[in-house]
């Protein structure tokens, strides 16, 4: 009774390999594919939507599946700014500073109606939508949004990233 062994090919020994060694693709597709699965969010959490953010980012819904979960509490290490909750005029300078400290490429998500449009606030204190001061890529309505809506928003943002043009070399270069 002989022992069966699985033959192991030394890389380069035969000159042939089962795995492909070359791949041809478009640069934007490759970079977009890499970027859409490595979103590091910075949670700018100001109000009650925070509870929903916790729900969506913890195990039952688990945004980590999308490569979009590990919150980085430094804007310099993150590329998705999640604005979760009402932003007041008094907080707007802080939000702008956080946004400006993020490195390119960066995306912004307005989480909930308050961040989207001010929601039901129309008064002296509330900023009527964060897109008045910073550009926003994806809006998620709801007060608060369901976790499914947030996941849908993340997936739409990933589609947007995948379809976008990704400049490797800076425009000013």
């Amino acid at each position, binding site marked *: 009774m002989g022992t069966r062994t699985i033959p192991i090919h030394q890389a380069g020994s035969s000159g042939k390999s089962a795995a492909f060694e070359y791949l041809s693709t478009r640069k934007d597709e490759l970079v977009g594919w890499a970027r859409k699965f490595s979103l590091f969010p910075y949670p700018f959490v100001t109000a009650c939507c925070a509870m929903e953010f916790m729900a969506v980012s913890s195990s039952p819904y688990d945004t980590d599946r999308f490569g979009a979960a590990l919150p980085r509490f430094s804007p310099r290490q993150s590329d998705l700014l999640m604005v979760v909750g009402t932003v007041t*005029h008094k907080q707007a*300078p802080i939000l*702008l500073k956080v946004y400006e400290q993020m490195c390119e490429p960066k995306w912004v998500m307005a989480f909930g109606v308050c961040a989207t449009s001010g929601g039901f606030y129309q008064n*002296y204190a509330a900023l009527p939508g964060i897109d*008045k001061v910073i550009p926003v890529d994806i809006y998620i309505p709801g007060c608060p949004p369901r976790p499914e809506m947030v996941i849908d928003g993340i997936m739409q943002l990933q589609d947007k990233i995948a379809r976008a043009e990704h400049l490797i070399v800076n425009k000013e270069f």
Partner: protein
Amino acid sequence: MGTKVFDRIKARLPAGDGEACVSHGVLVANLAPGAVETAARSLKTEFGFDVFLDVTAVDWLGQEPRFEVVWHFYSTAHKVRVRLKARVAESNPAVASLTPLYGSAAFMERECHDMYGIVFEGNADLRPILLYEGFVGHPLRKDYPKDREQPLVPYRDWVAAERGGS
């Protein structure tokens, strides 16, 4: 027990605008603005009202005097509340600060100054506490427009284009 204390307080309070009455278990007294500090001192020293709950204001737009400043006190010994009210005019919306009696009054008076423009004479620090430096007006006054915006960060270009075009 509460009513006995209330009777003693009523006897001690200066005669103001109408007699003090009990409303929903709270003793309510309308006073002249100048009498509030004395009344609060006697509440604290004689009747054991050791907690300063809040000071706020009501804007009776169209009436004269326009503003009604409202103070709430609580006694942990008697377990009762007292509300003092005083009317001040828009031309001189000033009352005495209660910070010498209650240190906790300082922030609440700052908030009331933010929102209604009531001047608390004797409070050395009436800088904005909930609002920001440079905010014009007092937002909880009834004549403050509800859609007036005073942004600290200039809005992006599209906002002006959209609003101007509509």
